[in-house]
């Protein structure tokens, strides 16, 4: 997301720029885009999803993606196994400005201090087995301080950072 500063302060709201009283979504200068409005207020929790061992990623792939398309660079997909497989992994990439802000694995604990050094984007992988599940960091974005596979279920949250 672009940033535009006014008297040294970043414009962080969704509609900081108005023209003749009308909210602007984009600001251009000589045909070059200078600024795009934030789609959400900064630090907005976009969604929380939970997965149980023995379950699948079908709802995440279809309804979570279709409900929050701006959060994703592309539609999540099974990169190994499928909905009916005992073991399956589902991969997803977050758009810039969105990050995994919380991850809890039932056995192994909670990463609640954000996703490490970076809070924008990144590719992650959900693993669901018969008795275990979890979330792993693949690339970009920030790492996870809790491991990617433990007994029972897991959940994670995606938040808008605007960065």
């Amino acid at each position, binding site marked *: 997301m672009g940033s535009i500063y006014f008297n040294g302060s970043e414009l962080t709201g969704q509609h900081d720029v108005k023209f003749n009283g009308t909210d602007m979504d984009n600001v251009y200068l000589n045909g070059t885009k200078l600024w795009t409005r934030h789609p959400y207020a900064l630090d907005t929790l976009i969604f929380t999803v939970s997965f149980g061992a023995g379950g699948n990623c079908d709802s995440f792939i279809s309804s979570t993606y279709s409900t929050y398309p701006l959060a994703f660079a592309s539609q999540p997909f099974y990169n190994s196994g499928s909905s009916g497989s*005992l*073991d399956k*992994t589902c991969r997803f990439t977050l758009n810039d400005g969105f990050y995994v802000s919380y991850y809890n*694995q039932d*056995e*192994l*604990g*909670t*990463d*609640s*201090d954000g996703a*490490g050094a970076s809070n924008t984007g990144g590719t992650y992988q959900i*693993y669901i*087995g*018969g*008795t*275990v599940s*979890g979330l*792993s*960091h693949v690339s970009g974005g920030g*790492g*996870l*301080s*809790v*491991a*990617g*596979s*433990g007994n029972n279920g897991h959940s994670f949250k995606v938040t808008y950072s605007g960065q």
Partner: protein
Amino acid sequence: MATAEQIAHYYEGLCKVVDNINAGKPDNMIQASWDIHSSINIEWLKTIVNADFWTDEDMTAVHLIID
């Protein structure tokens, strides 16, 4: 930045992962699932052992797995 309490919590989770790997495949898990489960966590150990928030935690058991 992780707090001391969070670091202790992460270390506790790390030790569970190490213990689980060292204990080997549980009876209620088939070999193929164990292979995926353990490889995911070993890859995570390779990354997390180098995290910049650790202080004086003992990582000997981690290195015995990943080295």
